[in-house]
């Protein structure tokens, strides 16, 4: 039973750390043009932090005209959850409702805590404690942040535009361990920045994604296989 308590502790710790930055998501979302309800729907229904930040980031930069790019950025960032789902599928077991609920809370944190455990039953426990914990906490803090963002006024005076950039950097940071990932990150940043003056806001980010597909397809800069999902520290949801 000692092991189960350790898994609980780890899951709850990750859930608390991750939930804390739901506040920054909520505040950024309303200052980018969403209302409080739309912000909360993103956290309940989309429930994957990287995609949520991408959606409001592109919307904030390009306005209504950038909505298609905002959707595409969010969806492309959500592709990794598909890989996590494939990894968790045999661990979760059978039953439609159980698998549906598991799919919805399949994110970086729940997958990372699960696969770090030593036995199937501990993996299941870690997955559910972390997944449900983050879901509850993230949605509560999103609402709190959205209400806070509503009363802040000019987002630039509070440095919220810089906070958005820092949020993406913090989500990116733990993924920059292999040389291939660093090369792709630098190239994508250069491509996106240099295309910004020439095409509609939102599109430079999507063009930069082509860098990843090309490098990944031909395995340039020799990668060593898929990285593990990022863990703890509340790196990304």
């Amino acid at each position: 039973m000692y092991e189960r308590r350790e898994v609980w502790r780890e899951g709850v710790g990750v859930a608390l750390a991750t939930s804390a930055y739901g506040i920054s998501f909520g505040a950024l979302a309303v200052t980018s043009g969403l209302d409080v309800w739309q912000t909360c729907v993103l956290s309940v229904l989309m429930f994957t932090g990287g995609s949520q930040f991408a959606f409001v980031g592109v919307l904030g930069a390009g306005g209504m005209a950038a909505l298609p790019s905002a959707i595409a950025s969010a969806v492309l960032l959500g592709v990794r959850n598909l890989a996590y789902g494939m990894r968790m599928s045999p661990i979760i077991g059978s039953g439609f409702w159980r698998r549906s609920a598991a799919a919805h809370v399949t994110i970086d944190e729940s997958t990372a805590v699960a696969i770090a455990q030593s036995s199937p039953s501990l993996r299941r426990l870690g997955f559910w404690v972390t997944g449900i914990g983050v879901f509850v906490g993230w949605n509560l803090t999103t609402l709190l942040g959205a209400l806070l963002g509503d009363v802040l006024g000019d987002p630039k005076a509070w440095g919220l535009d810089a906070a958005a950039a820092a949020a993406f950097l913090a989500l990116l940071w733990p993924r920059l361990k292999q040389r291939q990932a660093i090369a792709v990150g630098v190239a994508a940043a250069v491509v996106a920045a240099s295309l910004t003056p020439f095409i509609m806001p939102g599109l430079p980010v999507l063009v930069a994604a082509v860098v990843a597909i090309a490098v990944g397809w031909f395995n340039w800069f020799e990668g060593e296989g898929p990285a593990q999902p990022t863990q703890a520290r509340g790196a990304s949801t």
Partner: protein
Amino acid sequence: MSLWSAVLLAACACAALKAFGYLIPAHLLEAPRPARISDLLTVALLAALVAVQTLGNGQSVVVDARIPAVLVAAGLLYLRQSFLVVVIAAAAVAALLRLIGWAV
């Protein structure tokens, strides 16, 4: 396209991706190429978003208080600080530089 339909479309698509993961047979995961592209796609999108959020202003590239703020954020990440500390520090740096008029 209305804001609501965009929110719902993007949210449902992301939720569907998670569900697909549970429907696809696991042996497809063994193929290194899709797994590698999925990982690198995440890196490229996040890196591009960092660049655009730091330098972009609509369709122009500008140098303002966001650059020192992001440099401070990078330093704190290097020192293994938590997400919340990094984000709040970046906001504080930009807000302070604007308040004292050292940057726009």
